[in-house]
């Protein structure tokens, strides 16, 4: 029983994305959340590659049987697509900072992977990259709520962007410290690190449920 549960959780990074995908196939999404639509599709293919690489690692050539670089790639793509999403919300609050953050993140990636880490590291994913991504996305999420608290225009709060932002907020809240300490955990507490990844996977399922709700609530604006 536990084994079946573990298989389901292991593959959740792939099947969780199948929750929002039927909705976005069935319902045309407004331009404002197109970047989230792209994210769902790209994440689906990257996560499929991640899980297939992991499951077929014994059959693949050594150079290709690590999926850590795919997690790094997923992180970079997630950050830029959600940055576009937050910028496109056109909330007149911290606009300059919101627009500057993607450039800062790009600079961070270049510096980090040129001088400190290897993007295609065989043995580990980049804790630093994923943690920086998570904290920046958390900043975007918190500023969204702060803007809405002070905004007097809108009262229909449970709209599509609310669900997407809340899902993202839950995901990064749970995962920031997991990402930050993951490399350390794999060194000192390997089994705990593997178990902890289930928390990441469950939060990813919740994230996708919220995205699906956001797609479902969307309407042309």
């Amino acid at each position, binding site marked *: 029983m536990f084994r079946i549960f573990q298989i389901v959780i292991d593959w959740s990074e792939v099947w969780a994305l199948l929750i929002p995908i039927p909705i976005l196939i069935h319902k045309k999404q407004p331009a404002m959340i197109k970047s989230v639509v792209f994210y769902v599709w790209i994440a689906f293919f990257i996560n499929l590659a991640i899980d297939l690489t992991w499951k077929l690692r014994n059959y693949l050539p050594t150079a290709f049987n690590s999926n850590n670089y795919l997690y790094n790639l997923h992180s970079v793509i997630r950050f830029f697509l959600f940055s576009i999403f937050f910028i496109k919300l056109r909330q007149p609050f911290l606009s300059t900072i919101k627009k500057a953050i993607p450039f800062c993140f790009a600079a961070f990636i270049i510096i980090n992977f040129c001088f400190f880490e290897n993007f295609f590291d065989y043995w580990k994913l980049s804790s630093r990259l994923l943690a920086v991504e998570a904290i920046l996305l*958390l900043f975007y*999420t*918190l500023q969204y*709520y*702060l803007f*809405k*608290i002070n905004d*007097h225009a809108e*009262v229909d*709060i449970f709209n599509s962007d609310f669900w997407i932002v*809340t899902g993202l*907020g*839950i995901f990064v*809240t*749970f995962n*920031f*410290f*997991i990402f*930050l*300490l993951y490399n*350390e*955990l794999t060194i*000192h*507490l390997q089994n*705990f690190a593997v178990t*902890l990844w289930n928390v990441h996977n469950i939060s990813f399922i919740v994230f996708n449920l919220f995205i699906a709700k956001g797609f479902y609530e969307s309407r042309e604006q």
Partner: protein
Amino acid sequence: MSQESNDIRLLLVVGIAAMLMLFISLLLIFIFTQRKKLQYQNQVQALQDIQKNQLIEAAIRSEEIERHRIAEELHDEIGAILGAASLHFYNVKIEDCDESSQTIYQKGRVLLDDGISKIRGISHNLHSSILQEFGLNEAVGHFCGKLAHESLIEINVNLDNRYPTRAAQNDISIYRIVQEFINNIIKHARPNKIMISSIYQNNYLDLTINHNGNGLTQAQFEELRFKRDGLGLKNIQNRIILLKAELKLAQQTDDFSINISVPIF
């Protein structure tokens, strides 16, 4: 297990807990403030609705007062003058005049009588004394009786007698709505049969107007009442709002129906 491993584990648990607390508290503040805003907006909306209804009521009441005043002026002033003129006319000795003068005199008398009758008609239309004295059913029946013409249009009236004769102050608005609809139907739909019926039960008056002309559907009515020249329909809509009534227009094969459901307090 080493101290370092324990520290990492503790840091992880405390870190996740702290992040969760931060996120959940902000989310709760967000939801709470939005609810407050929603409550405030609903209150403002309710006040605006009350104000709008008061304005409509004031406009309709002043219109009625003005109608009353004009009706009184026509009836008491002009009607009296024309009546006196008629009396003088009847006392003119015309027997000694030639035939042409007698014809002109007769024509003048007919026109004067016609004028007096028209003035009375307009006066009664502007302010229905029948409505005041005998109630809505009688007023609607009388109004329809005046419009019906055997060869051109047949108007059947079947109103519920259970409706109290002097039920509400709103009778005048219901009467005006019926008046406006019937006038519009005759003018635009050109039917040869109109049926007006009503049912009064559970403190609701359901008034239905059926006709076989070229009538309006609900969608067409909604479209027309926003047009600048649709003053009659706007008046109907204002009175419907004032009465807190429901208006439904529908088409059933060849017939059109207008249903007005009015709560009677």
